[in-house]
């Protein structure tokens, strides 16, 4: 649960819930927007992680 990916998913979940609730008024729209945001965060994080993978630190 405290792995990088696990914490990223939990973080994305919290942020998606708040922004979904903040940006939309109807519960159904909030759920849809929040789910899309969550998916974008998680997929974006994984894609960015792989793009940065070859870079030397």
């Amino acid at each position: 649960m405290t792995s990088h990916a696990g914490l990223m998913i939990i973080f994305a979940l919290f942020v998606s819930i708040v922004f979904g609730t903040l940006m939309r008024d109807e519960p159904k729209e909030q759920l849809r927007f929040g789910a899309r945001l969550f998916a974008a965060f998680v997929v974006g994080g994984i894609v960015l992680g792989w793009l940065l993978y070859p870079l030397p630190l």
Partner: protein
Amino acid sequence: MRATTADREQSATYTYLICAAAWAIPGAGHLLLGRIQKGLTFLITLTLMFVFGLWLQGRLFPLTELSQPLVALAALADLGIGVAFFIAGKLGLGAGRVIAQTYEYGNAFLIVAGLMNMLVVLDAFDIAQGRK
């Protein structure tokens, strides 16, 4: 009928009280404005995120180190969560353990919880003003 100066002053006071409540307790502003679902969602989510940040051994940056700009900005962001910031400080939580593996993650959770509560306060302000 036009609003009188007294009406406008009363309305402004009410709006600022709503904002103060929204800052002090996440979601309280929405609850007072009758947006129960939104208020409860903010209350549960932001409080949980703050607690999670503390559990991950993040640090609540002190307001006393204002000479260091990054610490000061982090402290202001942390303060955004409201009364919980002071309660956690009184309970000795949020000292931050730099050597903990989850220290930076904890900081991110604490800072973002505070910043998102600031957005919630602005949303409550807009609702109180009748813009939403």
